[in-house]
């Protein structure tokens, strides 16, 4: 099958509007006869389900949590980008588009990114109309802040809880439709397979997590919005339940998986403390607006800190190495995430790391507190030389901006970040790779659409901060509702899809067989035992720095571990009841396949780009070395019975509007 991205013709800035004007529509009376399944209720799924229901389609929405409001979009902290140019600092649709393509290290599809930048403004308007309480200035207008990899302030926010507020907005729009009966909501349900009839996506098999029943659900199209697969690393900033199962099952039924190796390791997370750790907590990138990152300049200071003999506040200004400001003077602490993460790893590997583990750097707010304090003192006509007063005023400003993040840090680490610098270290956060989609967001399975983090299209090899929320909502509110109509227009005479077709029976049997195997296995180890082992292989050999030897080993080790899992895993309880171990086992089984494809993709990509860093391909000063001549393409993998036998299909990335240059933030 040849990949056809279906990018419309015409100039870049006219593509989307011309395309919308010419695609097929479904009239309101016919929409009532068409069913759409939406799996996942985060920003992408929630916004898509609500909008499709408003249009008149019958929507069935599924989430594994006890309420759609709990999807992991809720945990996004910093903000959402839009090219409103409210600050008058020179922002525009083109600049947002350009920054995103550059930030993604020239591995994203131009037309999709331009559309994303175009609809970004509508998102803010829509959310405000829904009553989303964004941060405002004293004049009553919306406030903005700045994020990594850009030189304008285009990020809208609601303290450190922007994802929560946006998701509750989408959830409220869903609730209106659930109340009207246009969305039928299935909480505590997990999709375990997709059903294809005559090559088209026509339904799913889901497990009711309360009573364990295996259910068949049919529809005219299936929309998968189940987020990313960062939990393949066991430790990540994802929610405990975040998983790849829905996407992986679609992959096994024919959806190509694109660029699985593009993973974002976020620079500012709370460092690991011990073996018991179940997840890692992010400290929003917005903190890099005001926080300065450093490690000790002298090795003896770093050693003394690790041994607990010295406090960071005792180190003189001239003995601190603000390494991001030193290496990247024009972007400083606001370089993109991949760059900041690698720079932290470089310092720690060189022996300058802090924390007892040596795997942490400082994020310091002292100078921000002083700067804000002095500003407030001047505004309030107080003495700006009174250090105590300045600290108090400055602390109030910082608390107002990042209060919930500081509280979160204090609860976990048991240290006050207002007086002692925070300790941070990179952690797995987001996956740019995902199922391949065309311009319509349709996968290589007809009628199966992929939205949000689950698809691959907009962020290339590295996502910029505050762009995930933008993409999720763009896909769900403003892209899919148009493009799906063009497809469903052919289904107005199809009628309801029966669930007693042999295709449904076969998919259900497939699901039951896997569950039977897991339940009847007389193994000795818990699911977590295997998941932790997988995570360790991934982090050590497929993590922040990769090389051919490690990746080859990782592929073999994962394959071996998978075999071991099926032989020795022990799942307690029964299949016909509430069983969290079984839920985990089904998810980890899929991670054990994905991990191998992930390593294979990383091995084949003989270049460094964005979040994918191959040690063999770097410049003399340790920067990533891209190879546009040979790798300016999307790697879309076709499943062939075993992850290592996946077949590569290439979609060449054609840049008509942006010149490919070496990405520099110096």
């Amino acid at each position, binding site marked *: 099958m040849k990949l056809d991205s279906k990018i419309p013709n015409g100039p870049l800035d006219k593509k989307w509007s011309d395309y919308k004007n010419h695609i097929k529509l479904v009239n309101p009376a016919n929409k009532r006869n068409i069913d759409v399944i939406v799996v996942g209720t985060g920003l992408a799924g929630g916004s898509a389900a609500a909008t499709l229901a408003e249009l008149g389609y019958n929507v069935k929405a599924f989430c594994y949590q006890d309420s759609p409001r709990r999807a992991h979009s809720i945990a996004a902290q910093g903000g959402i980008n839009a090219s409103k140019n409210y600050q008058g600092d020179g922002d525009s649709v083109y600049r947002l588009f350009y920054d995103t393509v550059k930030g993604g290290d020239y591995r994203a599809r131009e037309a999709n990114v331009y559309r994303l930048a175009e609809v970004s403004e509508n998102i803010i308007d829509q959310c405000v109309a829904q009553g989303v309480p964004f941060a405002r200035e004293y004049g009553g207008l919306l406030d903005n802040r700045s994020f990594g990899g850009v030189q304008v302030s285009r990020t809208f926010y609601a303290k450190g809880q922007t994802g929560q507020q946006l998701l509750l907005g989408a959830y409220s729009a869903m609730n209106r439709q659930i109340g009207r009966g246009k969305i039928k909501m299935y909480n505590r349900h997990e999709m375990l397979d997709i059903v294809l009839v005559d090559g088209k996506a026509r339904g799913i098999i889901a497990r009711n997590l309360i009573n364990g029943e295996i259910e068949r659900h049919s529809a005219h199209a299936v929309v998968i919005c189940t987020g990313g697969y960062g939990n393949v690393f066991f430790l990540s900033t994802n929610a405990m339940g975040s998983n790849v199962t829905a996407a992986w099952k679609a992959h096994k039924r024919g959806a190509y998986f694109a660029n699985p190796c593009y993973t974002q390791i976020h620079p500012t997370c709370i460092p690991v403390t011990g073996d018991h750790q*179940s997840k890692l907590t992010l400290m929003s990138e917005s903190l890099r607006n005001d926080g300065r990152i450093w490690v000790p300049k002298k090795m003896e200071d770093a050693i003394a800190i690790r041994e607990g003999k010295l406090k960071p506040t005792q180190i003189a200004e001239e003995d601190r190495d603000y390494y991001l400001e030193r290496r990247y003077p024009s972007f400083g602490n606001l370089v993109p995430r991949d760059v900041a993460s690698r720079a932290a790893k470089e310092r720690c590997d060189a022996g300058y790391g802090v924390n007892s583990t040596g795997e942490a750097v400082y994020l310091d707010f002292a100078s921000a507190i002083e700067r804000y304090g002095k500003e407030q003192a001047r505004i309030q006509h107080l003495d700006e030389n009174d250090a105590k007063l300045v600290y108090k005023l400055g602390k109030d400003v910082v608390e107002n901006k990042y209060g919930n993040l500081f509280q979160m840090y204090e609860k976990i680490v048991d240290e006050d970040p207002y007086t002692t610098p925070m300790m941070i270290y990179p952690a797995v956060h987001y996956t740019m790779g995902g199922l391949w989609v065309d311009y319509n967001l349709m996968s290589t399975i007809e009628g199966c659409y992929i939205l949000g983090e689950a698809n691959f299209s907009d962020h290339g090899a590295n996502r910029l901060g505050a762009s995930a929320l933008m993409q999720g909502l763009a896909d769900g509110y403003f892209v899919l509702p148009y493009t799906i109509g063009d497809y469903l227009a052919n289904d107005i005479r199809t009628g309801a899809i029966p669930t007693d077709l042999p295709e449904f029976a076969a998919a259900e049997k497939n699901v039951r067989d896997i569950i039977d195997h897991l339940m009847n296995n007389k193994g000795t180890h*818990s699911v977590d035992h295997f998941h932790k082992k997988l995570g360790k292989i991934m982090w050590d050999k497929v993590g922040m720095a990769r090389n051919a030897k490690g990746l080859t080993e990782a592929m073999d080790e994962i394959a071996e571990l998978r075999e071991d899992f099926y032989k020795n895993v022990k799942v*307690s309880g029964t299949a016909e009841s509430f069983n969290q171990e079984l839920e985990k086992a089904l998810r980890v089984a899929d991670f054990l396949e994905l991990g191998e494809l992930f390593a294979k993709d990383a091995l084949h990509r003989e270049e460094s780009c964005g979040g994918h860093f191959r040690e063999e391909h770097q410049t003399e000063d340790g920067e990533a070395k891209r190879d546009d001549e040979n790798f300016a393409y999307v790697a879309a993998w076709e499943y062939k019975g075993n992850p290592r036998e996946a077949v590569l299909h290439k979609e060449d990335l054609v840049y008509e509007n942006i010149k490919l240059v070496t990405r520099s933030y110096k």
Partner: protein
Amino acid sequence: MNLTLKIWRQKNAKEKGQMVDYKISNVSPDMSFLEMLDVLNNELIEKGDDPVAFDHDCREGICGMCSLFINGEAHGPDRGITTCQLHMRMFKDGDTIYIEPFRAKAFPVIKDLVVDRTAFDKIQHAGGFVSVNTSGNTQDANAIPIPKHDADRAFDAATCIGCGACVATCKNSSAMLFVSAKVSQFALLPQGKVEAAERVLNMVNEMDALGFGNCTNTGACEVECPKGISLENIARMNREYLKASLK
């Protein structure tokens, strides 16, 4: 640390439950409370016992999925946090810890410590929204300036995570704090004012119909709320309700 845990075990919604004792050793003070339960569960699984079921997901205090009544308090002894943010340094070696589900008529137990909170969703279906369709043609986001003070108070109300600690804490199992947070968020913003009267009546009626109790101004909900949702919201909802009833 070595601890004794007394945990509520209940097979499913129909069967009767009971407290069961467990011993756990080598607990690190840096563990979160749920990581301590993870360790217990791993031991139970390897021994061939049924692990303790409990709800959790984000483990960073924002999704609202985790619950637990610990030593008689929703989300345990610390303030301003959810159970997943509670750390074992809050306990001492040799402590006995009682772990129960959130209890309320409207929150039936599904298994062990897992309860059904869909009643909260149902209240939201009755009016927790602004009736605006997605169009791309709504007015510019800056067309209506909103005083910062109002926007900030609307935000404070909107930070409710819907965990149900207020209901579990209240002696009347009242959901007033939860409902008033949503009513307040919209009542404070111009976008929500158009439907304010209808919204408060519908949401309160649904809350009553689902079996939640009344508010008797004890204020325990505010103390136990992990997000510090203020009682002022209940006062505002009562005002909104009265205004709407007199229309």
